[in-house]
């Protein structure tokens, strides 16, 4: 467990900023306490100060996780967002995609979102913009990347992919063992 290096921080923030933009600072500079990011087993954890102190008493080997896992660094030092960060990022999401009830399951099984399943999308969503996927009931379902801009989404035929799957809450079941 160690703090992130500046490079790591940058990589991670760039990724997160795709989803929440300038709201990122709200994660870092929180009014209700001190929160920080910690790297442990290549995973980045978002930890409150109190939990950080508590976790400091546990050896690194024994420590499985602490706080909330935001994602992990791949071997190539890219950052991959985990669905566990959804609770922290969804409230700040700038671009959202709502998918129809019929397409929810497909998305929650790890599939991309087709236009036929696209119920609603934030306007001015650009291509490859990170989006948070919601159900029509406004339940955050996961992360995605807009495969088409909002304008393109209007034109494409119903079977084209409009949102690439990044992470979904189905992973809590599917990848239970790896989600920490």
């Amino acid at each position: 467990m160690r703090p992130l290096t500046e490079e790591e921080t940058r990589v991670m923030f760039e990724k997160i900023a795709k989803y929440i933009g300038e709201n990122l600072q709200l994660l870092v500079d929180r009014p209700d306490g001190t929160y920080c990011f910690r790297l442990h087993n290549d995973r980045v954890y978002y930890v409150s100060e109190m939990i950080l102190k508590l976790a400091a008493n546990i050896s690194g080997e024994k420590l499985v996780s602490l706080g909330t896992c935001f994602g992990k660094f791949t071997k190539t030092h890219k950052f991959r967002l985990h669905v566990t960060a959804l609770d922290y990022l969804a409230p700040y999401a700038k671009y959202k995609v709502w998918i129809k009830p019929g397409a929810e399951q497909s998305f929650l099984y790890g599939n991309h979102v087709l236009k036929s399943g696209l119920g609603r999308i934030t306007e001015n969503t650009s291509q490859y913009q990170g989006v948070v996927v919601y159900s029509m009931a406004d339940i955050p379902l996961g992360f995605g990347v807009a495969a088409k801009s909002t304008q393109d989404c209007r034109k494409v035929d119903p079977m084209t992919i409009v949102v690439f799957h990044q992470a979904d809450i189905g992973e809590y079941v599917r990848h239970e063992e790896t989600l920490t």
Partner: protein
Amino acid sequence: MEESPENLSSNYDRCPVFMKANREMKRLFVGGLGQGISETDLQNQFSRFGEVSNVEIITRKDDQGNSQKVFAYVNIKITEADLKKCMSILNKTKWKGGTLQIQLAKESFLHRLAQEREEAKAKKEKPTTVNTNLLEKMGGVDFHMKAVPGTEVPGHKNWVVSKFGRVLPVLHLKNQHKHKISFVSLKPGAVAFSLTLNNIMKYDPSKYCHNLKKISENLTETIPITDLTWELEGGNDPMSKKRRGEFSDFPFPPQKIKKVQKSKGPMESKVSDISLRTNEVMANNKSAQPTTAHRKAPSTAAPSKSLHVPSSGSQKPKHVVFHTSDFEIIWNKSRMSDDDIDSEEELKMMIAKEENLQKTRHSLVNESENDLFEVVRDDFKSDTHRLRSSTSSGNDDGCDSSDTDEIIAMKKNTGKVKNSAESPQPEKPISMRSSFKKRKPSNDCVEVQNTKSNKESALGHEGKFLNPKFPPDSNTSDSEESEEDEEYKALMKNCPRVNLTLADLENLAGNHQKVPGNDESDGAQNTSHCKFNTTSKSPKTSNDLRSGRQCICPEEILASLLEEENTYSKQKPEETTLKPKFQAFKGIGGLFAKESGDKTLKETVDFNNINEQSRSSLKHEEPNRVFIENGSKCANGSSNKLTSCQAAKKVNSPNHIQSPKRQSTCESQSHKVVSSTCFDKESQNPLSCPFPLEGKKSLSISAKSHKIDSDRDTCHWPKSRKAPEKEDIDSSYITSLEKPPNVSLREDPQKSTATFSLSVSDASCMSAKDKHAEDNQKRLAALAVWQKAREVQKKLVHNALANLDGHSENKKTHIVFASDNESETEETSTHEQNCPGKELVKESMDKASGKLFDSSDDEESDSKEDSTRFNIKPQFEGRAGQKLMELQSHFGSDERFRMDSRFLEKLNENQTNEDELAAERKQTLNVVQSVLNINLSNPTSKGSVAVKKFKDIVRYDPTKHDHVIYERKQEDKEKESKAKRKKKREEAEKLPEVSQDMYHNITTDLKEIFQHMKNTDEKEEDTPSNEDCGREETEEISNAATLTSGAEQTSGFTFSFFDSDTKDIKEDTYRTEPVKRGKIVYQEDPRFQDSSSEEEEEKEEEEVAKEADHRRPSPGYGMGRVVRLMGIFLVWKSDAAADLNTSWGTLANQVLTYSGVVWEVVLAEILGKPEQVVSLWIVGRNIKKLKGS
């Protein structure tokens, strides 16, 4: 033609054919043949008549395979003659086992088919030939030119070689539908098409293929059924449509479209697009026009368009446009017979529109069904979300409501707690009824004081007289006071409770009435007092003498009132604690009661007649002495008890220490002691002569001017008794001086004191007046000191008395005994004993404790000691020290387990961690800035500030003592004000007894006064009143009456007895005058409407006044407003800020009793605000009685 039959069958070729011109091909049926006949036989047989081309033998067999029939067909070329010949010869002849039957058979189908083909060929060839012939005939031109398509035919203008070699004319089509085309051209999608149509003016066949054929086919062939129908004029309603044979889902015949396409080429593609969705692909391929695409989209995905909630509106019109254009185009193309098509198109359009509408609606309703997705703004929040939010908000509301409920519940709980706290009080009042009663009088400055003096005395003297009236009042007032003090609101809410409590109190009061002797002094004393009263008419003296408790109680009440100003919560314990103290004093007072009685008697007598005073005093002294003697036995024991109690008290509270000091001082000067007791009482009840004395004494004692006073007293006393009168005077002055500074206690302390002083001065004689000036100066000086000292005392008392509730009752009992029984000497001794004991117990409490009220110095020292005592030890200072202390607190004080600094965690670690975190956060924020390209302005500071704010939010917990800070202290003031109100009410109620004439005369004055009165005016008036009151009692009384009927009442009632009271009342009235009028919510009670309201200027008040007008013009309330609810009257009164400063404490509570009618008056005063809220609670049972009275 002739050749063709030859080709029909191969047999012809094989067989040698005899060709004759007449021979025709016949087919003969030959039946009745035998089994063994072969074809050759038949051929040979028939060859005689003609040329046999083909023989076909057919054998019919049954199920077993046996041949039943055999017959044959023979094709033969034969002439008619030969045929007849043959028929006649061979028919019905037996040949080879069978009779031949020959008939002419039908032509074989194969042959016929072949023949037809030949004919068809011939037909094809014929027209061409015909045309050519025609052409040749017409112009002799060969239409089949071997030339490149497009070359003009020489000699013929506008004739061109078409693509397949035909010569065709170039057509200049005058489009009949030109106008329509132009119309079409208006639409964007149809522009190209319209152009083509316009250009069609010249139709070059060389550039188009198959035109002729298609046209011809189009005209001739496959006309859809719809084309054959005619349009009925009618609306678009379904019935008319059905009549026309048109149905919304009528399938458009695809073939027609295809054919049309073939025939018309470019134009048709559009038609196809329009017409059928199945052909859309075709249309797309053919026409690259955007319109087609659009058409597709609408036609196929019409719902989708509609689904675009934002864009559906715009798309719809487009859709319609397309339809129209399509329809028109089709119409143009179909031309002649296309009217039907038009109708269809229209129908389609209509249907499409309807569908669109439905879809749009649908889309609005059910987005999920729509194929298209929805584009949403950044700030979009879905309906569901809204719903959620709404629900959540609802939940929140619910939560809020619940919270509020909880809060209310909390309040209620608190109220209940307070009530419960209060409820015990009624019990207390039972035990301490006397004290409560005394309180009330103390609260009620003017009239009440008179009444109170009466009451106090009444407990002993008038108690019986007035008991029926007073006790309920006292009970109610007590309950009200306690409750109101604790929770005014709770009382408001818990009216029934109040009633109950009132009833209980009344019962209690009845008990009191019965038992007054028990509480204060035995019934014998009461009787004796009554006698005295009757004889001397000076109940006060009797009061002083009798009621060790009573006197004590008022004193306590006074102290409590003073304390109440500080805090409510502390008041009660303080009162209780104070009571024991005063009880001890009272005991002393009881011992010296004779003297006090003399004093009071004298005073009253001074007002009345000196002679009477002497008599009364004598009488009083005697009975008192008797009582004292009787009680002397007990007194010793009681004194001992008292001492013990006092010692305990002293240990508990520094105030107690002071009291013993006082006692000691008093002991030193027995007169003083008595006077002090009297003063105490007086301080509580400034109006009554003994009370002023007490108050004065307390003041004087505190100011250390006591000695001088005592000297004076001693000097003066020689008449009857030295000190008390003078002391009274001095004290009265002092009190008068002191009271104004004590603003909190009473609104009109000055006046009251002034009145007291005046009365006292009158009573005491000229010498007192001479000394007044000097006394005043001294008093002024003393007052300043005294105020400071008193504040300190109050604090100390509050702190110390908080825990003493339990002791009070016991002490009271002790005190009662002591007060009744002790003799002077014994008293002194007991006091002395008490003092040392107390001192011993107190240890370091008071060094100068010898004097009771000199304690200001002592208190200061005490406070210093206390402050030093609570100094934080050096090792516990600072943050680390706190932690160390916490650690140590876990293990108590055991040395073995003492935690020293070694056990302290190093703060540095935490600090360093924090620093690290802060640095890390800074770094991360920098990264964020770089990532976002945003300038974060002072992120850390923001965060820190926010955090602080967040942490600073404290949830108020009424159970925590620390949170008292968050409570508003207005209640204290309210209490006082309530008390005042009560007093005023009482006064007002009592007024009816007073002559009404005075009231009526004075009303004008009242108005003027109310209009112009202000604080300054009041003060000015007060001072003169003080001076004058001694002289002109009647005038003052009249003024008071004018000011407030209550004043009149008081004056009228007790006027003869107490001038001071009346004066006080006047003061009160003045104070109250400046009050502004608040809002009045008034509900008339049918009971109360009877009375006429003259006094009160205000409307609502008038009504209230009606009820009580005879008696109660409520001086202070004249300005206030009265609200009656459910028999409860609320008076809101807003006072000027200056008035706020004045102390309502003395007027805290009044209870008015009229012949079984209980009036509860609650004054709520808010000092912090310009407006004071005064609420009057009046519970009237029998107003008629009041009226009658």
